[in-house]
């Protein structure tokens, strides 16, 4: 379970998070929506300790992330996978090395075994035979899927997805959504998905939360989100489903 309580974060004069509280139950998927620039990525980065909030608390299971020592942070991060909005692939490494790096660093698996697992994960995200290419030779959508494979390679318990389907065609988006749901069911992971894509939000979310002006203005089931009377939510649902 991830419990976020009253998290504040500002960059200089710019207040981004102003008291965000949100709970993601174990084994469930929470979708976070909100306008561009409202702090969704900052919230995800806070959860994994890349951004340190000014105040508040973020608990992952028993561990507190806010103010944690570097060593504890690395221990906590071993339970996480994260897909970055821009994929953030290591451009000096090949696709296979990108995906297999964590295995190489954290396990004693043989090269061959790592190679097999990498191939497996690549197949899962619908990419085969590109092991030896460099990230610069891939399209945006392919990079995203490689990032997804990299995030899932350690079979993490918690996964943070920053816009997993942005920039993918509808067929691929659908495949990725099903992949997220599938992994979530199969491994029982706890997932947080940031997305602008309402179809995928309704498809994969056990729970939807909306950020606006630095706070969570809505939190509830997809059904409740769809029928909410809140103007901000209504606008989002309508705009999202039209576009």
């Amino acid at each position, binding site marked *: 379970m991830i419990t976020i309580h009253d998290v504040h974060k500002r960059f200089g004069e710019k207040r981004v998070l102003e008291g965000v509280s949100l709970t993601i139950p174990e084994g469930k998927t929470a979708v976070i929506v909100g306008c561009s620039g409202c702090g969704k990525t900052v919230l995800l980065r806070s959860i994994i300790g890349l951004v340190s909030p000014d105040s508040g608390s973020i608990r992952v299971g028993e561990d507190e992330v806010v103010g944690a020592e570097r060593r504890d942070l690395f*221990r906590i*991060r071993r339970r996480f*996978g994260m897909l*970055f909005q*821009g994929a*953030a692939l290591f451009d000096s490494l090949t696709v296979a090395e990108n995906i297999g*790096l*964590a295995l190489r660093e954290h396990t004693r698996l043989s090269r061959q075994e790592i190679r097999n697992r990498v191939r497996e994960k690549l197949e899962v995200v619908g990419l085969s035979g590109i092991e030896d290419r460099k990230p610069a030779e891939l399209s945006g959508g392919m990079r995203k899927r490689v990032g997804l494979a990299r995030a899932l390679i350690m079979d993490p318990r918690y996964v943070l997805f920053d816009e997993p389907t942005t920039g993918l065609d509808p067929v691929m988006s659908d495949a990725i959504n099903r992949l997220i749901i599938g992994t979530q069911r199969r491994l029982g992971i706890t997932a947080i998905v940031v997305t602008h894509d309402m179809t995928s939000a309704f498809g994969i979310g056990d729970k939807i939360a909306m950020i606006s002006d630095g706070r969570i203005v809505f939190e509830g089931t997809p059904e409740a989100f769809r029928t909410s009377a809140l103007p901000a939510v209504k606008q989002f649902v309508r705009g999202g489903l039209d576009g």
Partner: protein
Amino acid sequence: MISGLAQRIGRLTLFFLREVGTHVLLLARAATAGGYLLRRRHLLIEQMHKIGVRSLPLVTIVSLFTGAVASWQAAYQFRGLISFDYLGAAVSAAILIELSPVLTGLVVAGRVGASIAAELGTMRVTEQIDALETLAIDPVHYLAAPRILAGFIMMPALVIYSNLVAHAGGYLVAYSMLDVSTAAFFGSARRYFLVHNVVAGLLKAFFFGGGTALIGCSIGFRTAGGAEGVGASTIRAFVYSSAFILVMDYILATLLF
């Protein structure tokens, strides 16, 4: 007026101390990577190759001409005062103590310090360093430690090589343009040869190499602001490591001689 000046001096001092502090802190954190680097030797070897082997062409050219100029200039100063029989000794000592370590240091600072800063800076602004963190891989161990250690190791190696090439350059000029015989050149170099000079030169190189790589890493890690920031970091790494080398050279000279 006076207080404005005092304020500026104060600010500069603070800035300087903070800079040095972050570099030293990074060095301390990288120093804990010993066991890690033993397991992941190939990271170190890759950097040794990049810093050492790939610098060879540049170091060759610089050393050859440094030796040549040293010979020519020494002859200019000797003319009418000192016999050219001592040319070899003077050129050799200058190469070993000062010219090879400092000039190799400066060109490597330009090549390696700047390229480390650009590489790590790019990784910072494209979130690759954040990605390492999320994979529970410490960027200081994975990225900085191999580069810094490779700097410490490879710079003395480069300077040994540079010593040889510079002697060749000095000899070629002395022999072909100043009519100094082979025996006279190397004979006098050998007669006045001191192991201390070689060791001192290599010790300088050791600090220059480690310092340059450390500064490159530290500045690369702190890069912000996209491509423009990467450009700024590259220049800063070169300026800081050159200044570091010249100041360090002076400090070591007073300590060693």
